[in-house]
Structure formats: C-alpha cells, structure tokens
C-alpha cells in the first residue's frame, strides 16, 4: 500500500510497523486543559490520538477543536466524524477546516443514536452514511472535488479510516461489510473492542480469505476493564459488544481491589494474542477515562519504543 498523504500513521503502517493509536474524549466544557492533560499522559506511547466526536451522543467540545489542540502540541490527531450531526455541507466544510491545520487522519462513523445522549429529543441528520463519508473524503482528496463536483483549491490530504465491528450482527455479513468499506475507500480500520478473541480470529480468517488484509490496515481495538462491574455493563448494556462469560468471570473472581490490575492483564494478554494474527497491523487502545494506563499497557504488550518518522 503506497503512501498517499503526509500522515504519520500512514507512514508507520506502510513501513510494516505495528501502529498504536489511542483516543481521548473531549471535555464537557470549554477548558482545553482536559485534552492537553490526557494527551500528555499518552503522547510518547502512541502514534496517533483519536478525538471522539460527541461520543454516545453526549454534547462535548467539538472533535475538530480538540484535534487542533493536539496539532498545536505537535501531536498526530485522528479526527473522528459522525454523520449524525452534520449534513454534507458541514462535513465537507469541517474536513477542509481540519486540512487547513494539516490534520491528516480521519475516521468516518455513523455515530450512536441520539437517544443515548443528553439531547434525546433532538433531530439527527444522516444526510450521508459512514460509507458515503468515506467516499466523499476520498474524492475530495484524490480528485480534488466536492460532492457537488466543484474543484477544491488545496484538497485535504486525509488518511481515511473507518470502524469495523466484527461482533455485531448479523455475523455472516461482517466480512462483506468490511469489503464494502474498503471498496468505498477506507485505508485503515479501527475495530470495536475485542474480548471474544476466537470470534475475532474467525472474522480475520474471512478477511484474509478475501485478501482484504492486503488492502486495508486493521488496528485491533482493545479496552481494559476497570472493574467486574464495567465488564458486566459492557456485556449487557453496550450494543454490538461481545464479552464472553469467562472474561466477566475472570474479572469478578478477583477481589475488588485487584480487579483493575486483572483488567490490564487481560488487555495485555489480548494484544499479545492479537499480534500473532496475520493481517492485524496495529492496536487501538481505548482506555476510557483511564488514559494513565495506556503507557503500562503499551509497554507490557511489547509495543515500545514507538517508531520515529
């Protein structure tokens, strides 16, 4: 896969190194310190940092502004963009805004339904879907054209990513769905948190059977459990999440004060097993409101030092 953008993430993946990304959720207020602090905790342990876009539909500081903060710190952001809140004018306009700050990575998502958040009575937009957003940004970059066909002066140079959930239903189309995203133009994939490794391996088998692992860089998503309660919550309450009973049990079998440590152990072991899977080109470590643990996870999983590009 030849490099097409100045993205550092793309360079690392193209060089054959395992990439490591993580994510920060912007604050529910206007204080930039929250972002700066989180970024400082992880910056030497990851190659790029995703900034979530009003995740779980809860209103927060915008992803683009938080990405600019990272840029100002000399870091590499991945701009997450959901199609829930903006129409095609706003999406294209924000892509240009990001590109004007030389933000070079983007993750295209549909976003959780607004009923999960603090504005359940609001409208949703969904003018484009996530696949069409991928197509749009690829066209903006590769052809230098807006959706409407007009020419873009200084087209955005985005390395284009998408999410994949190998565990959502129906399972039989999960590989086909990835193929569709690749056909739309996705260049890297960050997966849903993986706890059911057997099922993930099965999915990757299907991915390799179709040669998709050679067309797109797959970063395996991992999230450490802080407690057995969190494991149960993720299992029962989060749509599209697959947490096997034995993983929940492993957490709940530990005394309360040892559960966080066990959560990290499970996460590190998962990465080690995932490293062996052909086609996994990196890791997306989502330590939700637990960023301080990212360095330990990355270090124990043998992913240090991070390559300099």
């Amino acid at each position, binding site marked *: 896969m030849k490099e097409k953008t100045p993205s550092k993430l793309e360079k690392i993946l193209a060089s054959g190194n395992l990439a490591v990304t993580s994510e920060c959720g912007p604050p529910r207020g206007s204080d930039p310190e929250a972002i700066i602090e989180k970024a400082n905790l992880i910056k030497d342990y990851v190659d790029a940092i995703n900034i979530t876009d009003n995740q779980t539909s809860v209103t927060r500081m915008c992803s683009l502004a938080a990405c600019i903060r990272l840029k100002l710190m000399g870091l590499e952001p991945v701009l997450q963009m959901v*199609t*829930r809140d903006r129409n*095609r004018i706003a999406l294209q306009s924000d892509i240009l805004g990001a590109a004007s700050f030389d933000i070079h990575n983007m993750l295209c998502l*549909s*976003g*959780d*339904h607004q*009923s*999960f958040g603090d504005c359940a009575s609001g409208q*949703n937009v*969904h*003018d*484009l*879907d*996530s*696949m*069409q957003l991928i*197509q*749009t940004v690829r066209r903006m970059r590769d052809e230098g054209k807006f*959706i409407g066909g007009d020419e873009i002066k200084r087209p955005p140079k985005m390395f284009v990513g998408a*999410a*994949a*959930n190998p565990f*959502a*239903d*129906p399972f*039989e*189309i999960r590989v*086909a*769905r990835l*193929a*569709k995203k690749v*056909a*739309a133009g996705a260049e890297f994939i960050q997966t*849903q948190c993986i706890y059911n490794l057997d099922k993930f391996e099965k999915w990757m088998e299907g991915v390799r059977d179709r040669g998709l692992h050679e067309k797109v860089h797959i970063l395996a998503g991992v999230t450490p459990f802080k407690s057995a309660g969190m494991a149960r919550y993720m299992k029962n309450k989060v*749509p*599209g999440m697959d947490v096997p009973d034995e993983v929940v049990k492993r957490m709940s079998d530990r005394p309360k004060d040892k559960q966080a440590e066990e959560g990290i152990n499970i996460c590190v072991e998962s990465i080690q097993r995932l490293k062996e899977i052909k086609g996994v080109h990196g890791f997306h470590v989502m330590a939700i409101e637990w960023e301080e643990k990212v360095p330990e996870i990355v270090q124990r999983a043998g992913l240090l030092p991070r390559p300099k590009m």
Partner: protein
Amino acid sequence: MIVAEKKPMEEVIKEIKDYKNILLLGCNECVTVCEAGGKKEVGILASALRMYFLNQGEEKRIDEVTLERQCDHEYLEEIRDRIDTYDAVLSLACGVGVQFMADKYVSIPVYPGVNTCFLGATEKRGLWTERCQACGQCILASTAGICPISRCAKRILNGPCGGSTNGKCEISKELDCAWQLIINRLKAMSRMDDYEILLDIKDWSSDRAGGPRKVVREDVQE
C-alpha cells in the same frame, strides 16, 4: 396509509373549552382504519366531552360529522351550509385533513384531535408500524423491498451500523433492525451478492429537505 393516534383528552379539552358550538369532524379514510378519527372515535370523543362539560356545569353543543375524506374538496364542501353555525371545529382527520379544512373555511378556528404519526401498515389490530417517509425517490429496488429510510433509526443506506444486535436495532430491543430484515430477504432471494453494491449518496431534494412538494399531472387535470 397515514397512521395517527388520538390526542390525550386533557389536550383536546384545552383546545376547545372556550367555544360553545363545536363540530367534531371525523374522516372515513386512514384514521378510521387506525382507529383514531373515524365515525366510531368521533362518537366516543363527543360523548366523553359532553359528559365532561356537563359535569363542569357548562352548556355546549357538540355535533358529530364524519366525512368520506377530509383531504378532498368534494367531501369538505358537504358541511358548507352548516359551518357558520359553529364556533370551532375539532378535526379528527390527519394533519392533511385539518389543514384542508383550515384552507377552505378561513374564518373558523380548527383544532387537531389526533397526532399524525407516519405512513405505515396495520400489522395486526392495535399495532401500526412505519414503512415509508415519502422521500420522493423510492429506493426499494436496491434494498430488497425494505425501506431503510423509514425503518432504520439512522436511515443508513449502506447498513447495518455496528449497533445491530440479535436482529434488533441499537435503540430498542423491541425494534427490528431494518438492515437485518434487508439481509434476511436478500438471503431468501439468493441475492446476497447484492449486499456489496454501494448505494450512492442520496439526492434528498425530493424529500422534505427540498421544500414543500407537489405532484402535477397535467394530463388528468380538468
């Protein structure tokens, strides 16, 4: 058909309490089928209102009329000779009927008696579900005959999203995931290969987004 549901009694009372001569106007079409505003519902509501105002010691005249259709000049004309004897009309037709009434009889206040909900079907008596959002450019040919615009909570044209679980939508365990239904039908028709056809960015200008719409057929106009 258009599916509506009755407004709560308190809201209806609030709308009409200041009028003395009130016409309850039902419609014999969709709102009859979905049991929200047909002759039967007009009768029940009229009795309930009479009872309520009687208990309040208020004297009112509440008449009942149910037209064949309220979205049609011809039928709406049927009440022209008596409309001036009322102070207000409570229409149990869908929002279209209420507005047609308001357009035609400009000086008489008209109030909605139902909430107009969606274009849908009767799954069984007492259960109506949405099927169409009248986007003006039907794509059912590309989606195995199941409409993701009206039936997917995110109107995703290339679905499903990552929230689909056990065939249900991420927003509710009671709601089928439209994309699961599409895939089931593609499978049943042995057309699973079609799943990988990317649906283009939609032109929403024929949808609500393009402004109020109009269908013109000059060939049938008189």
